[in-house]
Protein backbone atom coordinates (compact mmCIF):
# COMPACT_ATOMS: atom_id res chain seq x y z
CA UNK A 1 0.00 0.00 0.00
CA UNK A 2 2.15 2.82 -1.27
CA UNK A 3 0.92 6.35 -0.98
CA UNK A 4 0.15 8.30 -4.10
CA UNK A 5 3.07 9.90 -5.88
CA UNK A 6 4.05 13.17 -4.24
CA UNK A 7 3.47 15.04 -7.51
CA UNK A 8 -0.31 14.92 -6.94
CA UNK A 9 -0.02 16.56 -3.53
CA UNK A 10 0.27 20.21 -2.65
CA UNK A 11 -2.00 21.42 -5.40
CA UNK A 12 -4.23 24.26 -4.23
CA UNK A 13 -7.41 22.31 -5.04
CA UNK A 14 -6.34 19.34 -2.98
CA UNK A 15 -5.56 21.60 -0.04
CA UNK A 16 -8.90 23.34 -0.36
CA UNK A 17 -10.84 20.09 -0.42
CA UNK A 18 -8.89 18.89 2.60
CA UNK A 19 -9.82 22.02 4.52
CA UNK A 20 -13.43 21.47 3.52
CA UNK A 21 -13.33 17.88 4.74
CA UNK A 22 -11.76 18.88 8.04
CA UNK A 23 -14.41 21.53 8.63
CA UNK A 24 -17.24 19.19 7.67
CA UNK A 25 -15.94 16.44 9.95
CA UNK A 26 -15.51 18.71 12.96
CA UNK A 27 -18.87 20.38 12.38
CA UNK A 28 -20.73 17.08 12.03
CA UNK A 29 -19.11 15.72 15.17
CA UNK A 30 -20.01 18.86 17.15
CA UNK A 31 -23.61 18.69 15.91
CA UNK A 32 -23.90 15.05 16.87
CA UNK A 33 -22.84 15.92 20.43
CA UNK A 34 -25.98 18.06 20.63
CA UNK A 35 -28.02 14.93 19.96
CA UNK A 36 -27.02 13.45 23.32
CA UNK A 37 -29.31 14.15 26.22
CA UNK A 38 -26.78 15.46 28.75
CA UNK A 39 -29.36 16.84 31.17
CA UNK A 40 -30.16 13.65 33.07
CA UNK A 41 -26.61 12.63 33.81
CA UNK A 42 -24.52 10.39 31.63
CA UNK A 43 -23.94 7.58 34.10
CA UNK A 44 -26.46 5.38 35.76
CA UNK A 45 -26.59 5.67 39.52
CA UNK A 46 -24.67 2.46 40.07
CA UNK A 47 -22.89 2.63 36.74
CA UNK A 48 -19.37 3.09 38.01
CA UNK A 49 -19.71 0.10 40.30
CA UNK A 50 -20.89 -1.90 37.31
CA UNK A 51 -17.74 -0.90 35.38
CA UNK A 52 -15.54 -2.14 38.20
CA UNK A 53 -17.48 -5.40 38.51
CA UNK A 54 -17.46 -6.03 34.77
CA UNK A 55 -13.78 -5.33 34.31
CA UNK A 56 -12.92 -7.11 37.53
CA UNK A 57 -14.31 -10.34 36.10
CA UNK A 58 -12.27 -9.95 32.90
CA UNK A 59 -9.35 -12.02 34.14
CA UNK A 60 -11.21 -14.43 36.36
CA UNK A 61 -13.74 -16.10 34.09
CA UNK A 62 -15.73 -19.02 35.47
CA UNK A 63 -13.82 -22.13 34.31
CA UNK A 64 -15.88 -24.93 35.81
CA UNK A 65 -16.02 -28.01 33.53
CA UNK A 66 -19.78 -27.82 33.28
CA UNK A 67 -19.71 -24.26 32.00
CA UNK A 68 -16.84 -25.02 29.62
CA UNK A 69 -18.86 -27.87 28.13
CA UNK A 70 -21.75 -25.45 27.64
CA UNK A 71 -19.40 -22.91 26.06
CA UNK A 72 -18.01 -25.53 23.67
CA UNK A 73 -21.53 -26.52 22.59
CA UNK A 74 -22.44 -22.86 22.07
CA UNK A 75 -19.25 -22.30 20.08
CA UNK A 76 -20.05 -25.28 17.84
CA UNK A 77 -23.55 -23.95 17.22
CA UNK A 78 -22.11 -20.53 16.35
CA UNK A 79 -19.69 -22.16 13.90
CA UNK A 80 -22.55 -24.15 12.34
CA UNK A 81 -24.59 -21.00 11.78
CA UNK A 82 -21.61 -19.18 10.31
CA UNK A 83 -20.77 -21.97 7.87
CA UNK A 84 -24.38 -22.67 6.87
CA UNK A 85 -24.99 -18.93 6.47
CA UNK A 86 -21.93 -18.65 4.26
CA UNK A 87 -23.35 -21.45 2.09
CA UNK A 88 -26.51 -19.42 1.53
CA UNK A 89 -24.36 -16.35 0.90
CA UNK A 90 -22.45 -18.25 -1.80
CA UNK A 91 -25.69 -19.44 -3.40
CA UNK A 92 -26.81 -15.79 -3.59
CA UNK A 93 -23.46 -14.12 -4.21
CA UNK A 94 -22.02 -16.28 -6.97
CA UNK A 95 -24.88 -16.08 -9.50
CA UNK A 96 -25.76 -12.45 -8.70
CA UNK A 97 -22.12 -11.46 -8.67
CA UNK A 98 -21.56 -13.00 -12.09
CA UNK A 99 -24.62 -11.21 -13.45
CA UNK A 100 -23.62 -7.92 -11.79
CA UNK A 101 -20.20 -8.11 -13.42
CA UNK A 102 -22.00 -7.93 -16.77
CA UNK A 103 -19.60 -10.47 -18.22
CA UNK A 104 -22.09 -13.00 -19.54
CA UNK A 105 -24.40 -10.57 -21.34
CA UNK A 106 -24.73 -10.99 -25.10
CA UNK A 107 -25.27 -7.33 -25.96
CA UNK A 108 -24.21 -3.97 -24.58
CA UNK A 109 -27.78 -3.09 -23.57
CA UNK A 110 -28.19 -6.48 -21.93
CA UNK A 111 -25.03 -5.91 -19.92
CA UNK A 112 -26.18 -2.49 -18.68
CA UNK A 113 -29.59 -3.75 -17.55
CA UNK A 114 -28.15 -6.89 -15.96
CA UNK A 115 -25.55 -4.88 -14.03
CA UNK A 116 -28.11 -2.34 -12.81
CA UNK A 117 -30.69 -4.93 -11.75
CA UNK A 118 -28.27 -7.27 -10.00
CA UNK A 119 -26.54 -4.38 -8.23
CA UNK A 120 -29.85 -3.03 -6.94
CA UNK A 121 -30.79 -6.43 -5.51
CA UNK A 122 -27.36 -6.86 -3.91
CA UNK A 123 -27.47 -3.35 -2.44
CA UNK A 124 -30.86 -4.07 -0.88
CA UNK A 125 -29.64 -7.37 0.61
CA UNK A 126 -26.64 -5.77 2.28
CA UNK A 127 -28.34 -2.53 3.32
CA UNK A 128 -30.08 -4.34 6.19
CA UNK A 129 -27.90 -5.59 9.05
CA UNK A 130 -27.91 -9.35 9.68
CA UNK A 131 -29.44 -8.93 13.13
CA UNK A 132 -32.32 -6.91 11.67
CA UNK A 133 -32.85 -9.68 9.11
CA UNK A 134 -32.80 -12.10 12.04
CA UNK A 135 -35.51 -10.20 13.92
CA UNK A 136 -37.64 -10.11 10.78
CA UNK A 137 -37.16 -13.82 10.09
CA UNK A 138 -37.92 -14.77 13.68
CA UNK A 139 -41.11 -12.72 13.46
CA UNK A 140 -41.96 -14.36 10.13
CA UNK A 141 -41.04 -18.03 10.57
CA UNK A 142 -40.38 -18.38 14.28
CA UNK A 143 -37.32 -19.52 16.21
CA UNK A 144 -35.89 -21.98 13.74
CA UNK A 145 -32.28 -22.45 12.65
CA UNK A 146 -33.49 -21.46 9.19
CA UNK A 147 -34.07 -17.93 10.50
CA UNK A 148 -30.43 -17.69 11.64
CA UNK A 149 -29.02 -19.16 8.45
CA UNK A 150 -31.08 -16.92 6.17
CA UNK A 151 -30.44 -13.84 8.32
CA UNK A 152 -26.72 -14.37 7.97
CA UNK A 153 -26.79 -15.58 4.37
CA UNK A 154 -28.76 -12.74 2.79
CA UNK A 155 -26.61 -9.71 3.78
CA UNK A 156 -23.42 -11.73 3.34
CA UNK A 157 -24.65 -12.78 -0.10
CA UNK A 158 -25.11 -9.10 -0.92
CA UNK A 159 -21.53 -8.31 0.09
CA UNK A 160 -20.02 -11.37 -1.62
CA UNK A 161 -21.94 -10.62 -4.82
CA UNK A 162 -20.70 -7.06 -4.95
CA UNK A 163 -17.06 -7.99 -4.32
CA UNK A 164 -17.20 -10.93 -6.77
CA UNK A 165 -18.59 -8.68 -9.49
CA UNK A 166 -15.80 -6.15 -8.94
CA UNK A 167 -13.12 -8.85 -8.96
CA UNK A 168 -14.55 -10.34 -12.14
CA UNK A 169 -14.56 -6.93 -13.82
CA UNK A 170 -11.02 -6.03 -12.75
CA UNK A 171 -9.20 -8.92 -14.42
CA UNK A 172 -6.63 -8.04 -17.12
CA UNK A 173 -8.42 -7.57 -20.44
CA UNK A 174 -5.73 -8.76 -22.86
CA UNK A 175 -6.19 -12.51 -22.32
CA UNK A 176 -9.97 -12.06 -22.68
CA UNK A 177 -9.52 -10.26 -26.00
CA UNK A 178 -7.26 -13.07 -27.19
CA UNK A 179 -9.96 -15.60 -26.36
CA UNK A 180 -12.61 -13.50 -28.13
CA UNK A 181 -10.48 -13.12 -31.24
CA UNK A 182 -10.05 -16.86 -31.45
CA UNK A 183 -13.84 -17.16 -31.61
CA UNK A 184 -14.88 -17.94 -28.04
CA UNK A 185 -18.40 -16.97 -26.98
CA UNK A 186 -18.88 -14.68 -23.96
CA UNK A 187 -19.70 -17.74 -21.86
CA UNK A 188 -16.44 -19.43 -22.84
CA UNK A 189 -14.53 -16.20 -22.26
CA UNK A 190 -16.04 -16.15 -18.80
CA UNK A 191 -15.36 -19.80 -18.00
CA UNK A 192 -11.82 -20.03 -19.36
CA UNK A 193 -10.66 -16.42 -18.97
CA UNK A 194 -12.35 -14.32 -16.32
CA UNK A 195 -13.22 -16.95 -13.75
CA UNK A 196 -9.80 -18.64 -13.49
CA UNK A 197 -8.11 -15.24 -13.20
CA UNK A 198 -10.43 -13.89 -10.51
CA UNK A 199 -10.82 -17.16 -8.58
CA UNK A 200 -7.86 -16.83 -6.18
CA UNK A 201 -9.06 -13.42 -4.98
CA UNK A 202 -12.64 -14.68 -4.76
CA UNK A 203 -11.61 -17.63 -2.58
CA UNK A 204 -9.46 -15.31 -0.48
CA UNK A 205 -12.31 -12.89 0.13
CA UNK A 206 -14.70 -15.73 0.95
CA UNK A 207 -12.36 -16.93 3.69
CA UNK A 208 -12.19 -13.40 5.04
CA UNK A 209 -15.98 -13.37 5.17
CA UNK A 210 -15.97 -16.63 7.14
CA UNK A 211 -13.98 -14.75 9.75
CA UNK A 212 -16.64 -12.04 9.93
CA UNK A 213 -19.36 -14.68 9.83
CA UNK A 214 -18.22 -16.19 13.13
CA UNK A 215 -18.56 -12.82 14.85
CA UNK A 216 -21.96 -12.18 13.29
CA UNK A 217 -23.24 -15.67 14.09
CA UNK A 218 -22.29 -15.18 17.73
CA UNK A 219 -24.34 -12.01 17.81
CA UNK A 220 -27.33 -13.65 16.11
CA UNK A 221 -27.80 -15.73 19.22
CA UNK A 222 -29.09 -12.61 20.86
CA UNK A 223 -32.53 -12.88 19.25
CA UNK A 224 -32.93 -16.29 20.89
CA UNK A 225 -31.37 -18.50 18.27
CA UNK A 226 -28.75 -20.07 20.53
CA UNK A 227 -24.98 -19.94 20.31
CA UNK A 228 -22.45 -17.82 22.17
CA UNK A 229 -24.38 -14.56 22.00
CA UNK A 230 -27.41 -16.18 23.60
CA UNK A 231 -25.29 -17.52 26.48
CA UNK A 232 -23.67 -14.11 27.00
CA UNK A 233 -27.09 -12.55 27.20
CA UNK A 234 -28.37 -15.06 29.75
CA UNK A 235 -25.25 -14.61 31.89
CA UNK A 236 -25.61 -10.82 31.70
CA UNK A 237 -29.20 -11.03 32.83
CA UNK A 238 -28.04 -13.05 35.83
CA UNK A 239 -25.39 -10.37 36.46
CA UNK A 240 -22.86 -13.24 36.42
CA UNK A 241 -19.94 -11.31 34.97
CA UNK A 242 -17.42 -14.12 35.36
CA UNK A 243 -19.65 -16.35 33.20
CA UNK A 244 -20.03 -13.53 30.67
CA UNK A 245 -16.26 -13.39 30.25
CA UNK A 246 -15.97 -17.17 29.90
CA UNK A 247 -18.17 -17.03 26.82
CA UNK A 248 -16.51 -13.87 25.53
CA UNK A 249 -13.03 -15.41 25.85
CA UNK A 250 -14.26 -18.52 24.01
CA UNK A 251 -15.60 -16.22 21.29
CA UNK A 252 -12.33 -14.28 21.08
CA UNK A 253 -10.41 -17.57 20.96
CA UNK A 254 -12.57 -18.93 18.16
CA UNK A 255 -12.33 -15.68 16.19
CA UNK A 256 -8.54 -15.67 16.57
CA UNK A 257 -8.29 -19.31 15.37
CA UNK A 258 -10.46 -18.69 12.31
CA UNK A 259 -8.52 -15.45 11.71
CA UNK A 260 -5.26 -17.39 11.67
CA UNK A 261 -6.65 -20.02 9.31
CA UNK A 262 -8.12 -17.49 6.93
CA UNK A 263 -5.05 -15.24 6.95
CA UNK A 264 -2.83 -18.25 6.16
CA UNK A 265 -5.08 -19.14 3.23
CA UNK A 266 -5.13 -15.53 2.03
CA UNK A 267 -1.37 -15.11 2.32
CA UNK A 268 -0.86 -18.15 0.11
CA UNK A 269 -3.41 -16.89 -2.43
CA UNK A 270 -1.98 -13.37 -2.63
CA UNK A 271 -0.41 -12.63 -6.01
Amino acid at each position, binding site marked *: *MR*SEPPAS*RGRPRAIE*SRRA*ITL*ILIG*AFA*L*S*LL*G*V*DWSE*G*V*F*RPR*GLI*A*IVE*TLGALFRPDLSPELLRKAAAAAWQT*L*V*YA*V*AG*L*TVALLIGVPLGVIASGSIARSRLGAVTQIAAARAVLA*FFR*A*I*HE*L*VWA*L*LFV*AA*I*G*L*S*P*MAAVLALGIPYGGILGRIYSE*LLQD*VPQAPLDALRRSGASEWRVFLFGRL*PMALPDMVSYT*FYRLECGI*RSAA*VLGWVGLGGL*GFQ*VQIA*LEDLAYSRVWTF*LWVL*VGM*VVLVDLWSSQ*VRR*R*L*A*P
Partner: protein
Amino acid sequence: MSATPTAAQTPESRPLRLTFVSGSVLAMFVLIICSWTYIAFGQSWPSHGFFSGETASRAWSFLGDLAGKGREGTPAYLDGAAWAEAGRLALATLAMSVLAAGIAAVGALLTFMFAARNVMSGELAPYRSPVWVAWLGIVRLFYALSRSVPELIWAMLLVFIFSPGILPGALALAIHNFGILGKLSAEVVEGLDTRPARALRTSGAGWFQVIAYAILPAALPRFITYLFYRWEVIIRTTLVVGLVAAGGLGMEFRLALSHFHYTTVTLLLIWYLLLVLGVDIVSAAMRRLAR
Protein backbone atom coordinates in the same frame (compact mmCIF):
# COMPACT_ATOMS: atom_id res chain seq x y z
CA MET B 1 -5.40 -7.14 -5.43
CA SER B 2 -5.74 -8.15 -9.04
CA ALA B 3 -4.83 -11.69 -9.95
CA THR B 4 -1.83 -11.98 -12.18
CA PRO B 5 -2.50 -13.92 -15.33
CA THR B 6 0.48 -16.15 -14.65
CA ALA B 7 -1.14 -17.47 -11.51
CA ALA B 8 -3.89 -19.14 -13.45
CA GLN B 9 -2.38 -19.57 -16.89
CA THR B 10 -2.30 -23.32 -17.03
CA PRO B 11 -4.15 -24.80 -14.13
CA GLU B 12 -4.35 -28.18 -15.84
CA SER B 13 -0.65 -28.53 -16.33
CA ARG B 14 0.02 -28.62 -12.59
CA PRO B 15 -0.50 -31.99 -10.94
CA LEU B 16 -3.43 -32.01 -8.54
CA ARG B 17 -1.97 -32.23 -5.08
CA LEU B 18 -3.04 -31.29 -1.62
CA THR B 19 -1.71 -27.82 -0.86
CA PHE B 20 -2.70 -25.77 2.15
CA VAL B 21 -5.18 -23.80 0.07
CA SER B 22 -6.83 -26.75 -1.65
CA GLY B 23 -6.89 -28.55 1.69
CA SER B 24 -8.60 -25.55 3.26
CA VAL B 25 -11.21 -25.44 0.52
CA LEU B 26 -11.78 -29.16 1.04
CA ALA B 27 -12.05 -28.66 4.81
CA MET B 28 -14.56 -25.91 4.12
CA PHE B 29 -16.72 -28.32 2.11
CA VAL B 30 -16.57 -30.90 4.90
CA LEU B 31 -17.57 -28.19 7.40
CA ILE B 32 -20.48 -27.15 5.18
CA ILE B 33 -21.77 -30.73 4.99
CA CYS B 34 -21.36 -31.24 8.76
CA SER B 35 -23.14 -27.98 9.52
CA TRP B 36 -26.14 -28.67 7.33
CA THR B 37 -26.39 -32.22 8.67
CA TYR B 38 -26.35 -30.85 12.21
CA ILE B 39 -28.99 -28.25 11.39
CA ALA B 40 -31.23 -30.79 9.69
CA PHE B 41 -30.95 -33.69 12.14
CA GLY B 42 -28.87 -32.70 15.14
CA GLN B 43 -31.30 -30.46 16.98
CA SER B 44 -34.80 -30.86 18.19
CA TRP B 45 -36.54 -27.57 17.51
CA PRO B 46 -40.04 -27.15 18.80
CA SER B 47 -41.27 -25.71 15.52
CA HIS B 48 -41.69 -27.27 12.11
CA GLY B 49 -38.94 -28.46 9.85
CA PHE B 50 -37.53 -26.05 7.36
CA PHE B 51 -38.46 -25.80 3.70
CA SER B 52 -41.89 -26.95 4.76
CA GLY B 53 -45.01 -25.48 3.23
CA GLU B 54 -45.99 -24.06 6.58
CA THR B 55 -42.82 -21.99 6.83
CA ALA B 56 -43.44 -20.52 3.41
CA SER B 57 -47.06 -19.63 4.19
CA ARG B 58 -46.07 -18.02 7.50
CA ALA B 59 -43.41 -15.96 5.73
CA TRP B 60 -46.00 -14.91 3.16
CA SER B 61 -48.57 -13.86 5.77
CA PHE B 62 -45.81 -11.89 7.56
CA LEU B 63 -45.26 -9.90 4.39
CA GLY B 64 -48.99 -9.23 4.36
CA ASP B 65 -48.78 -8.02 7.95
CA LEU B 66 -45.95 -5.65 7.03
CA ALA B 67 -48.15 -4.17 4.31
CA GLY B 68 -50.99 -3.82 6.82
CA LYS B 69 -53.33 -6.30 5.17
CA GLY B 70 -56.53 -6.96 7.06
CA ARG B 71 -56.15 -4.16 9.60
CA GLU B 72 -58.45 -1.21 10.06
CA GLY B 73 -57.13 2.37 10.13
CA THR B 74 -54.39 3.92 8.05
CA PRO B 75 -51.16 1.97 8.10
CA ALA B 76 -48.34 3.84 9.88
CA TYR B 77 -46.31 4.21 6.71
CA LEU B 78 -49.06 6.37 5.17
CA ASP B 79 -49.52 8.50 8.28
CA GLY B 80 -47.81 11.90 8.25
CA ALA B 81 -47.50 12.26 12.02
CA ALA B 82 -45.94 8.81 12.32
CA TRP B 83 -43.49 9.75 9.57
CA ALA B 84 -42.42 12.87 11.45
CA GLU B 85 -42.07 10.96 14.72
CA ALA B 86 -39.95 8.25 13.07
CA GLY B 87 -37.97 10.98 11.32
CA ARG B 88 -36.99 12.43 14.69
CA LEU B 89 -35.72 8.98 15.71
CA ALA B 90 -33.88 8.67 12.41
CA LEU B 91 -32.14 11.96 13.11
CA ALA B 92 -31.08 10.69 16.54
CA THR B 93 -29.80 7.52 14.85
CA LEU B 94 -27.80 9.59 12.39
CA ALA B 95 -26.34 11.60 15.29
CA MET B 96 -25.43 8.31 16.98
CA SER B 97 -23.55 7.12 13.90
CA VAL B 98 -21.62 10.40 13.52
CA LEU B 99 -20.79 10.44 17.21
CA ALA B 100 -19.56 6.84 17.01
CA ALA B 101 -17.43 7.50 13.95
CA GLY B 102 -16.06 10.68 15.54
CA ILE B 103 -15.06 9.06 18.83
CA ALA B 104 -13.53 6.09 17.04
CA ALA B 105 -11.61 8.45 14.74
CA VAL B 106 -10.24 10.56 17.60
CA GLY B 107 -9.20 7.44 19.50
CA ALA B 108 -7.56 5.87 16.47
CA LEU B 109 -5.84 9.15 15.47
CA LEU B 110 -4.30 9.49 18.91
CA THR B 111 -2.97 5.93 18.99
CA PHE B 112 -2.32 4.52 15.53
CA MET B 113 1.25 5.84 15.30
CA PHE B 114 2.10 3.75 18.35
CA ALA B 115 0.83 0.63 16.61
CA ALA B 116 2.97 1.00 13.49
CA ARG B 117 6.04 -1.22 13.63
CA ASN B 118 8.25 0.99 11.45
CA VAL B 119 7.60 4.06 13.61
CA MET B 120 8.06 2.35 16.95
CA SER B 121 10.87 -0.11 16.40
CA GLY B 122 11.81 -0.05 12.73
CA GLU B 123 13.66 2.35 10.50
CA LEU B 124 11.77 5.44 11.67
CA ALA B 125 12.25 4.93 15.39
CA PRO B 126 14.75 7.34 16.93
CA TYR B 127 16.32 4.62 19.01
CA ARG B 128 15.65 0.98 19.80
CA SER B 129 14.12 0.62 23.16
CA PRO B 130 12.14 -2.26 24.68
CA VAL B 131 9.78 0.29 26.23
CA TRP B 132 8.69 1.44 22.78
CA VAL B 133 8.22 -2.13 21.62
CA ALA B 134 6.11 -2.77 24.71
CA TRP B 135 3.97 0.26 23.80
CA LEU B 136 3.48 -1.20 20.35
CA GLY B 137 2.33 -4.49 21.86
CA ILE B 138 -0.05 -2.85 24.33
CA VAL B 139 -1.75 -0.66 21.72
CA ARG B 140 -2.10 -3.63 19.35
CA LEU B 141 -3.59 -5.76 22.13
CA PHE B 142 -6.16 -3.04 22.82
CA TYR B 143 -7.05 -2.88 19.14
CA ALA B 144 -7.48 -6.66 19.00
CA LEU B 145 -9.62 -6.80 22.13
CA SER B 146 -11.86 -3.92 21.14
CA ARG B 147 -12.53 -5.16 17.62
CA SER B 148 -13.00 -8.86 18.37
CA VAL B 149 -15.97 -8.20 20.67
CA PRO B 150 -18.99 -7.34 18.49
CA GLU B 151 -20.77 -3.98 18.81
CA LEU B 152 -23.94 -5.51 20.21
CA ILE B 153 -22.08 -7.15 23.08
CA TRP B 154 -20.27 -3.89 23.88
CA ALA B 155 -23.68 -2.20 23.91
CA MET B 156 -25.08 -4.87 26.24
CA LEU B 157 -22.22 -4.17 28.66
CA LEU B 158 -22.40 -0.38 28.34
CA VAL B 159 -26.11 -0.05 29.08
CA PHE B 160 -25.29 -1.22 32.57
CA ILE B 161 -23.02 1.78 32.92
CA PHE B 162 -24.62 4.65 31.02
CA SER B 163 -28.14 5.91 31.10
CA PRO B 164 -30.13 4.77 28.08
CA GLY B 165 -30.01 6.97 24.99
CA ILE B 166 -27.79 7.38 21.98
CA LEU B 167 -24.59 7.72 24.04
CA PRO B 168 -24.11 4.06 25.12
CA GLY B 169 -24.94 2.92 21.59
CA ALA B 170 -22.50 5.39 20.08
CA LEU B 171 -19.78 4.34 22.52
CA ALA B 172 -20.33 0.65 21.77
CA LEU B 173 -19.99 1.34 18.05
CA ALA B 174 -17.00 3.58 18.70
CA ILE B 175 -15.09 0.98 20.74
CA HIS B 176 -15.49 -1.71 18.09
CA ASN B 177 -14.58 0.61 15.22
CA PHE B 178 -11.67 2.13 17.14
CA GLY B 179 -9.94 -1.25 16.97
CA ILE B 180 -10.67 -1.69 13.28
CA LEU B 181 -9.68 1.86 12.28
CA GLY B 182 -6.54 1.75 14.41
CA LYS B 183 -5.36 -1.52 12.92
CA LEU B 184 -6.07 -0.42 9.34
CA SER B 185 -4.34 2.95 9.84
CA ALA B 186 -1.29 1.37 11.46
CA GLU B 187 -1.03 -0.89 8.43
CA VAL B 188 -1.18 2.18 6.18
CA VAL B 189 1.75 3.73 8.07
CA GLU B 190 3.69 0.48 7.80
CA GLY B 191 3.15 0.48 4.04
CA LEU B 192 4.14 4.12 3.47
CA ASP B 193 7.06 5.25 1.36
CA THR B 194 9.57 6.21 4.06
CA ARG B 195 11.92 8.23 1.85
CA PRO B 196 10.39 11.66 2.69
CA ALA B 197 10.57 10.80 6.39
CA ARG B 198 14.18 9.73 6.17
CA ALA B 199 15.02 12.88 4.19
CA LEU B 200 13.54 14.99 6.99
CA ARG B 201 15.41 12.95 9.57
CA THR B 202 18.77 13.47 7.86
CA SER B 203 18.13 17.20 7.68
CA GLY B 204 17.77 17.27 11.45
CA ALA B 205 14.08 16.84 12.23
CA GLY B 206 13.15 15.17 15.48
CA TRP B 207 10.83 12.16 15.86
CA PHE B 208 7.76 14.30 16.44
CA GLN B 209 8.53 16.55 13.47
CA VAL B 210 9.02 13.53 11.21
CA ILE B 211 5.65 12.17 12.32
CA ALA B 212 3.87 15.51 11.93
CA TYR B 213 5.32 16.57 8.58
CA ALA B 214 6.13 13.32 6.75
CA ILE B 215 4.10 10.41 8.09
CA LEU B 216 0.80 11.97 9.13
CA PRO B 217 0.10 13.94 5.92
CA ALA B 218 0.82 10.86 3.84
CA ALA B 219 -1.37 8.59 5.94
CA LEU B 220 -4.34 10.91 6.48
CA PRO B 221 -6.11 10.60 3.09
CA ARG B 222 -6.17 6.82 3.50
CA PHE B 223 -7.38 7.23 7.08
CA ILE B 224 -10.26 9.48 5.96
CA THR B 225 -11.23 6.96 3.29
CA TYR B 226 -11.34 4.15 5.84
CA LEU B 227 -13.30 6.36 8.23
CA PHE B 228 -16.03 6.90 5.67
CA TYR B 229 -16.12 3.20 4.80
CA ARG B 230 -16.58 2.42 8.46
CA TRP B 231 -19.31 5.07 8.71
CA GLU B 232 -21.27 3.12 6.09
CA VAL B 233 -20.99 0.02 8.26
CA ILE B 234 -21.77 1.98 11.43
CA ILE B 235 -25.06 3.38 10.12
CA ARG B 236 -26.23 -0.17 9.33
CA THR B 237 -25.32 -1.24 12.86
CA THR B 238 -26.91 1.71 14.70
CA LEU B 239 -30.26 -0.03 14.55
CA VAL B 240 -28.74 -3.08 16.18
CA VAL B 241 -27.08 -1.34 19.12
CA GLY B 242 -30.20 0.78 19.47
CA LEU B 243 -32.14 -2.42 20.20
CA VAL B 244 -30.36 -2.77 23.54
CA ALA B 245 -29.10 0.77 24.18
CA ALA B 246 -32.53 2.34 23.81
CA GLY B 247 -31.41 5.01 21.34
CA GLY B 248 -32.80 5.96 17.96
CA LEU B 249 -34.73 3.72 15.59
CA GLY B 250 -33.57 0.45 17.15
CA MET B 251 -35.60 0.55 20.36
CA GLU B 252 -38.75 1.59 18.53
CA PHE B 253 -38.18 -1.20 16.01
CA ARG B 254 -37.97 -3.79 18.74
CA LEU B 255 -41.07 -2.44 20.51
CA ALA B 256 -43.07 -2.35 17.30
CA LEU B 257 -42.10 -5.95 16.53
CA SER B 258 -43.01 -7.24 19.97
CA HIS B 259 -46.32 -5.33 20.00
CA PHE B 260 -47.13 -6.65 16.50
CA HIS B 261 -47.38 -3.10 15.11
CA TYR B 262 -46.20 -4.36 11.77
CA THR B 263 -47.00 -1.28 9.70
CA THR B 264 -44.80 0.74 12.09
CA VAL B 265 -42.08 -1.84 11.46
CA THR B 266 -42.44 -1.11 7.75
CA LEU B 267 -42.18 2.64 8.35
CA LEU B 268 -39.06 2.24 10.52
CA LEU B 269 -37.50 -0.03 7.90
CA ILE B 270 -38.16 2.60 5.24
CA TRP B 271 -36.39 5.26 7.35
CA TYR B 272 -33.54 2.84 8.03
CA LEU B 273 -33.07 2.15 4.32
CA LEU B 274 -33.22 5.90 3.58
CA LEU B 275 -30.49 6.51 6.16
CA VAL B 276 -28.30 3.74 4.77
CA LEU B 277 -28.77 4.99 1.22
CA GLY B 278 -28.12 8.61 2.21
CA VAL B 279 -24.96 7.76 4.14
CA ASP B 280 -23.67 5.63 1.24
CA ILE B 281 -24.14 8.56 -1.14
CA VAL B 282 -22.57 11.18 1.17
CA SER B 283 -19.70 8.86 2.02
CA ALA B 284 -18.96 8.17 -1.65
CA ALA B 285 -18.93 11.91 -2.36
CA MET B 286 -16.65 12.66 0.60
CA ARG B 287 -14.27 9.86 -0.33
CA ARG B 288 -13.99 11.32 -3.81
CA LEU B 289 -13.28 14.72 -2.25
CA ALA B 290 -10.61 13.25 0.04
CA ARG B 291 -8.77 11.51 -2.76
